[in-house]
């Protein structure tokens, strides 16, 4: 068992940064993606569906451990430019806000993804999650 605190609703602090993850858009991971989506085969281009993978992967890594069974309720993607195959990205995860609506506990995470080489922002996102009770 992990000694780290569990990311329950009460544990999230709006404004707090929970970490930064690194993700390299290498040919191996793109090939895995294409095994699920064979149509996403534009040469040299990262499939846009993988943007969600970058954001969700960063949130799941930085906000762990979590109670099992949370549900993804909504997502915003603001693409400044599509990541390139071969590029390494750094994604910061921050708690944007949280609220209880009709006894459901919602948390929004703001993600900012930058090129590791240049620091240029390539993507921001807001992931809305219904936190498991």
């Amino acid at each position, binding site marked *: 068992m992990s000694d780290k605190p569990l990311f329950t609703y009460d544990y999230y602090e709006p404004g707090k940064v929970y970490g930064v993850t690194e993700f390299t858009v290498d040919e191996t*991971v793109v090939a*895995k*993606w294409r*095994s*699920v*989506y064979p*149509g*996403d085969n*534009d040469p040299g*281009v990262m*499939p*846009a*569906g993988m*943007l*969600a*993978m970058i954001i*969700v*992967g960063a949130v*799941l890594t930085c906000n762990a451990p979590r109670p*099992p*069974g*949370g*549900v*993804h*309720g*909504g*997502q*915003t*993607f*603001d*693409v*400044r*430019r*599509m990541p390139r195959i071969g590029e390494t990205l750094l994604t910061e995860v921050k708690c944007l806000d949280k609220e209880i609506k009709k006894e459901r506990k919602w948390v929004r995470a703001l993600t900012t993804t930058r090129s590791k080489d240049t620091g240029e922002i390539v993507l921001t996102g807001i992931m809305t999650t219904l936190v498991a009770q």
Partner: protein
Amino acid sequence: MEKTLKPSSRQVDFQSILNYADVTNDYNPVHVDKEFAAKSPMGGIIAHGTMSVALIWQALKNTLGVAALNRVHLEIRFVRPVRIDDTVTGGGELQAGASNVYDVWVRNQKGEDVIRGTATLRAA
């Protein structure tokens, strides 16, 4: 701008959900553990929401070209779960009176929206 996005579809079976979990490293038990999911408020396995979002990206790319993806602001809500053996289709229509905003959606085989949202294209 095209008035209608070219739709993109896929069938979702349990194996494809497991494959998606493997690619994305998202093994939330509501997606991969039938026993857990059955006892959860979802009442059974649901596909990852982002598995269907990929269909909206495909519809945008297939209609507007890959370069257009560099200037998209996409905002979506997951409004209904996708279940094993559903067939889902992503598409959209240019909003009435708008030149750069599409109402986008993913629908199941019953014609029910599972995702709703908007895709806004910034000027090139």
